[in-house]
């Protein structure tokens, strides 16, 4: 079925010989096998160190079940602090920033803040419940903004948790004692009919030891 005219394809391509295989061994194999051995040893040690005995509940960066278990909150205080950290992330972080340094000129810092490290927490509880508007001086620097109140969004336990977290977070240099839900409940009852945000002057009239 091949064409006869000279303008048509004329048949088999010349010199079409199938490739042959060279038998025997190659020196490269030895080097590749050595590299293979090294990589297998490396891979093995990697898996031994990082695969946490194939446990389904261990995720990176942890390397053993015991490590993860250790980090489980064990006491009620630990659980409260964890809750506080997450509440901070939800409500406070957008303005006061993940590292609690605030934004210069806009949002005051909470890390190492003189307002946060007062002996008592009454002012802070009021700020969280109703918010703070107008000029305020924090660590000697002026800020003038409006912080919303959260009294309709969070419970007493939540306020206690987030304030305990903020006041006691050593990462931020805060070492003040925490807040109990009963304190929050009492203050909430006291200011229940107040709808406006606080001003700095009003709060500074309160003693800071409570």
């Amino acid at each position, binding site marked *: 079925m*091949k064409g006869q005219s000279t303008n*048509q394809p004329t048949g*088999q391509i010349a010199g079409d010989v199938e*490739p042959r295989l060279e038998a*025997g061994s190659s020196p490269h194999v030895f080097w590749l096998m050595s590299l293979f051995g090294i990589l297998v040893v490396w*891979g093995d040690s*990697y898996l031994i160190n990082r*695969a946490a005995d194939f446990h389904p509940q261990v995720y*990176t960066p942890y390397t053993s079940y015991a490590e993860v278990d250790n980090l489980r909150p064990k006491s009620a205080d630990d659980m409260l602090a964890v809750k506080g950290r997450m509440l901070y992330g939800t409500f406070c972080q957008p303005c006061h920033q993940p590292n609690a340094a605030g934004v210069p000129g806009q949002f005051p810092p909470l890390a190492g803040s003189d307002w946060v490290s007062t002996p008592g927490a009454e002012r802070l509880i009021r700020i969280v419940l109703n918010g703070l508007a107008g000029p305020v001086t924090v660590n000697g620097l002026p800020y003038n903004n409006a912080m919303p109140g959260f009294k309709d969004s969070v419970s007493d336990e939540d306020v206690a948790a987030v304030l305990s977290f903020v006041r006691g977070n050593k990462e931020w240099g805060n070492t003040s004692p925490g807040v109990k839900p009963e304190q929050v409940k009492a203050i909430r009852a006291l200011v229940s009919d107040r709808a406006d945000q606080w001003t700095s002057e009003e709060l500074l009239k309160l003693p800071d030891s409570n």
Partner: protein
Amino acid sequence: MTDSSPERSECCEGSPEGSGTSCTTESIDLSCRWTVLPLLISSLLWLLLGSATLALSQIKLVAPGFLSSYEAVSYGRLEGVITSAFVFGFGLPALLAAAAWLQSRLGRTNLEGAIGLHIFGFAWNVALVAGVAGILTGDGTGLVGFELPRYATTPMACAYVVGAAVVLLNLKMRQHREMYPTQWFFLLSVLWFGWSFTGAIIAQSSTTSGLLQYIVGLWFRQQYLWLTLVPGYIAVTLYLVPKLAKVPLQNRSLAMMVFWSLVFLAPFGGIPASAPLPAWLVGLGTVTPALVLIPTLGLFLIFKNSRGEGQCPMRLTSEGRLISAATVFFVSGVLLSWIGTVTPLARLVDSTSYFKGVSTLLILGGFGLGIIALVHHAVPRLTGGAWANADLLRAQGMLSSVTVLGLAVALVGAGISQGLKTSGSSGSVGDLIGSSRPFFALAVLCALGFAGAQLMLVGAVFVQVFRSLNACCMPMISLWLAPMGSKKGAVRS
């Protein structure tokens, strides 16, 4: 068969293994012609469609307003179509076509059971079109790289079994028991895809847990890339390089090493470092890219040693250049995929376009250019005549290689720039957009160029097919058309 001697035609009809003289190359090519050619053409058309879709999707990244009121061409849906076109539309039919032809050539037997490949080609493509239409209308599975809906993949799997059976049957009927390495790698690809495809579909159907389906998707993607397309590329390389260089393949032990190390090391990867999966799975996914450097290095050594000492350099033929480019791209892709898992760089390029660039290098660069090289080599032999325009082929090969390189550079570059902008503690999406835009623009150009190159190739193949049809059929047709008893009818014979 009018021009074969009687002894040869007897032995060519289903000869048992190891008996008698081999069939001639002409008869083998002739037996493959109308099965392998349509499959290759359909796979090239899917490659064309896939690259055009890739260009469109990258245009949408640069100019989101382009065609933005049409649901079917939104970016999210086009992405599913692109991988389906490249892997299932181009990859698998090309793999089976290459396997059928090379197996017949190397086994020195005519292709038997061709009807099976016709059934495969038809059913597979019909189901794939339905699947792609499904993705465009919103039926994608949500698994990256495996988005075809089940109503498409199930008939595709059945069609595949038929096609694979033909290839394996022909392998069994080979003249010499000792298999050439190309045949090992095709055996691997054809079998492994059958197992993993049906396994993945069954696993998908037997569980409603999204988590397990996610893992099945990751696993299947690794299998079709590393244990189907990559062995297909290796098979083509191990055939073309020694054949073009006219030296024996160097050598058997190295080839065995590449084969078995690929088989036992590559299937365990595919889990990205950032996947929300336990540490042990992520660990496997980090160790495997390093281990597959072994078969890659082995392949590169075989390539380097089998190129001959200059009598027949690769650059003389367009397929030689293409297969060399394919090898360079493949090795670079494997290196980049390993580097992207090493911790300092992993922090930079995880969750960016970097790994898309890596899979471009492997699928389009390695396997794609390998198949294009095989098309350059096979079509003249299958159609019984040399290419009409060898310069066109050379240009097509050059354009394909350059555009694939450009695509890879664009995507890897986009990934690195995205990583640089977002891996700090203030990851701004706005910065990311600005820094990646020039890379996406480059990707548009290269995707369009690659599509154009495939259009050239499809055109050239059609011209070649028509010329061979002309040669074989025109005299017969003229004879039928000539009036009975006329001078013309008497003269033509």
